[in-house]
């Protein structure tokens, strides 16, 4: 399979968009062939990161890519905002850290739920968070 990866973009401007991001994540996870538990983890992580982008970043967008190039389909989600950025990333990643509503589990929780997690933030410029998760076959060598 050498298809080019398919990408979709969801704008994040209000609370409805958090729901839209969850639905787009669910769709990508089912397309990629994720198990129900994997789907739920991806959608939950997407919900946390979409809310972060809205509440802390003042909105932004989520880009969702399904990468089928290898045997194991991978869903990659990138959340971009142009908010104030995160001055202390280490503190923001810690459980219980919050400047808004919620339990402060957004970033740390999303990192635990995803296979891969990357965060880049420039104070004054904004934040990019990327997570990815690959389909896991239950049977195999």
């Amino acid at each position, binding site marked *: 399979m050498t298809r080019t990866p398919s990408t979709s973009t969801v704008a994040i401007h209000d609370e409805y968009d958090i729901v839209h991001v969850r639905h787009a994540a669910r769709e990508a996870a089912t397309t990629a062939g994720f198990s129900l538990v994997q789907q739920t983890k991806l959608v939950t992580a997407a919900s946390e990161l979409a*809310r972060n982008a809205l509440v802390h970043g003042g909105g932004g967008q989520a880009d969702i890519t399904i990468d089928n190039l290898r045997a194991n389909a991978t869903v990659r989600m990138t959340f971009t905002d142009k908010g104030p950025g995160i001055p202390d990333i280490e503190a923001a990643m810690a*459980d219980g850290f919050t400047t808004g509503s919620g339990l402060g589990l957004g970033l740390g929780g999303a990192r635990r739920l995803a296979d891969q997690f990357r965060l880049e933030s420039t104070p004054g410029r904004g934040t990019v968070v990327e997570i990815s998760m690959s389909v896991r076959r239950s049977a195999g060598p």
Partner: protein
Amino acid sequence: MAGVPIVNLNGVLLVTIQEELLDQSVAEFESDLTEKVVEARARGVLIDVSVLDVIDSFLARTLHDIAAITSLMAARTVVVGMRPAVAITLVELGLTLPGLLTALSVEEGLSLLAPPAGHARTALR
């Protein structure tokens, strides 16, 4: 995405979440329910979440807060019907929600909230 209906069942408020909620609806639900508990002098609250295929940290925190608030008003809250994949995800997210009463079905939840023994007959389980 309208409000969440709350039904009074002999002193137990039965709440069946019927669709995915917006953050704003979640906040309204918390305050509506709190007022209803006082109004109905409810001894228990049963929240059926079986329709939800995702519970993120915001909703989980609200469920936890509702339980804490109602307990200050002499009512116990039981969360019913959480899906296995949701429970697995919440624990991995770091939300074990200690102190939250749960039951697998509405029926079991109601028996947890049965009136104290001594009125009609003792009905432990």
